[in-house]
């Protein structure tokens, strides 16, 4: 093979200073997916630091949720690669990707609505428990031990949002905001290293959004994890994100910190300029 002279290419990765020495929690390289003839997402390259709060923004239909679905292998990417903590996730099932450390919430809330709040969290803690189906049926001591630990852990998680009182309520009967919070807790129960939040502030009023921002920061600090969020609320995005990636028509049009993004003419034209900054 003849040697090809390689041209250095700027990677465009933006990682907070504190994470720079460590393997990024997520690296995607030239990720793309086609639906039939439609190129939904193309050339999506992003790097997220281990404790970074990153934002993924863009107009409606830009392909943001599609990116989430590719990261969690709900969709198999047509092109490119995803490295989670330096490990390629190609070909894995969604449930296996979760075990490797990606947890997510959904744009349209997807709780186990006929189950109780406690049970929702316990499903998230599924892999923290290890007893077999037979042990469960026979109610062996391992069952009680494991269940007790898991329930205590679930109450700890519920206490993050002061939701201990709702533990026995049916998840579907909770008010909207509480359902969103429960979804985040259920995701956290899987012990993720990267938390994907799909429009966490949708349908929230400004004071609730303010509280949510505080909570996202608090969760990041408590668990020392990375957060990638899709959000239309610019106050939230600009307020808590350290790195922001802007997507339009399936392509990355800008990357940078909030100040860079705010002042980027391409972004203003594609997004803020036309829609008007909220």
């Amino acid at each position, binding site marked *: 093979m003849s040697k090809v002279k390689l041209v250095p290419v700027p990677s465009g990765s933006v990682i907070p200073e504190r994470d720079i020495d460590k393997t990024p929690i997520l690296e995607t390289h030239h990720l793309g997916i086609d639906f039939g003839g439609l190129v939904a997402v193309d050339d999506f390259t992003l790097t997220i630091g281990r404790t970074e709060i990153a934002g993924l923004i863009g107009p409606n239909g830009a392909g943001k949720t599609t990116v989430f679905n590719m990261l*969690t292998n*709900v969709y198999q990417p047509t092109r490119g690669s995803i490295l989670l903590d330096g490990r390629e996730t190609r070909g894995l*099932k*969604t*449930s*296996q990707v*979760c*075990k490797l450390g990606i*947890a*997510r919430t*959904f744009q349209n809330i*997807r*709780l*186990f*609505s*006929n*189950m*109780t709040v*406690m*049970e*929702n969290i*316990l*499903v*998230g803690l*599924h*892999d923290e*428990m290890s*007893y077999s*189906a037979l042990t*469960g*049926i*026979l*109610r062996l001591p391992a*069952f009680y031990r*494991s*269940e*007790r630990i*898991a*329930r*205590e852990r679930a*109450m700890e998680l519920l206490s993050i949002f002061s939701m*201990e*009182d*709702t*533990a*026995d*309520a*049916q998840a*579907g*009967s*909770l008010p909207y905001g509480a359902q969103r919070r429960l979804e985040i807790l*259920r*995701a956290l*129960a*899987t012990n993720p290293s990267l938390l994907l939040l799909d429009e966490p502030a949708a349908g929230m009023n400004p004071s609730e959004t303010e509280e949510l921002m505080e909570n996202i920061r608090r969760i990041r600090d408590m668990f020392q994890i990375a957060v990638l969020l899709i959000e239309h609320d610019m106050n939230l995005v600009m307020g808590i994100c350290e790195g922001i990636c802007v997507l339009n028509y399936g392509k990355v049009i800008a990357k940078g910190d909030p100040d860079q993004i705010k002042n980027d003419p391409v972004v203003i034209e594609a997004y803020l300029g036309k829609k008007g900054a909220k």
Partner: protein
Amino acid sequence: MKKKITLTKYTRSSFLTYGLVIAAYVILQSMVLTGSITSSLKGMLVPICAYAVMAVSLNLTVGVLGELSLGHAGFMSVGAFTGVIAAIALEGIVPMGWLRLVIAMAVGAVFAAVAGFLIGIPVLRLKGDYLAIVTLAFGEIIKSVLNNLYVGVDGDGLHFSLLSDRTGLAAGGRMIVNGPMGITGITKLSTFTAGFVLLMLTLFIVFNLVNSRTGRAIKSIRDNRIAAESVGINVTKYRLTAFVTSAAMAGAAGPLFAMNYSNIIANKFDFNTSILVLVFVVLGGLGNMLGSIIAATALTILPEALRQFADYRMLIYAIVLILVMLITNNPTLAAWTQSARDKLRRAVGRKKPARTPAEGGDGHE
């Protein structure tokens, strides 16, 4: 503090079911012993138990897993045939009747579980209506296979043949399964007590499974498959677990049912039987095991009780069924029973934590 309440909430509903089943058994069994029971009801006790087990096991697939299965009788027939073959083949070796019945039920459960596993692999790739139709097809396939199965036993062991009798039995051998003629000359080993024990065992398995991590995984798939996958639940594995467990319990009910009669044919376990069991489940309430048992009991007794109406029997049976469905799904009535229950609770003076208003609207409870 809270976690204790959650545990007792589960155990309360399951203990109520255990308690009522035990009470019903004690009452009926004492009636049998004192001879104060009609012979027609006495004859129905074992089928009631078998159908109750069928209903509870199907409720695991339909109510807990949330998939419609229209071939449940197929698993019952696999269990019935393999179990009865085992019981007949062991006649000389195991003299105790009850032990042969237990072995028959265990063999039936194992073979039905294997059938459930093999059928589950292709079937569980599908969802919803498609899954229901394919289970129907597999139920019919099982029936056809059993209709063409010939099994005999002689000194050398068991001999199998399909389509026609080429079992080549030695002299003195005994034909067990004779194709469409089914199994004849079954020793009636099934007893009400055996049925009761099997029903209790089934309830024990289902309740404990549902209230464990496995059961929660199964319920989470029912409620939201995509979310379940996103929190690391292996959907295929847990759907198969529920399906196979359900099939195994139906397989155990098979020998109980079959060994209550002197002969049994594969056509007894056709589509109609599957639908009948599904009716028990739907009438009793999805996910409600006690409801399944009550529905199975009532709808097994009802056709007999209506015998006096002679030709109009099935017509009245259908009308009763429609009325019961309408009444149990009536929102006014549901609201009334809910308020009555609340009043009762207040009267008893049990302090309950404040509940969210939407909780009362759940028809599954």
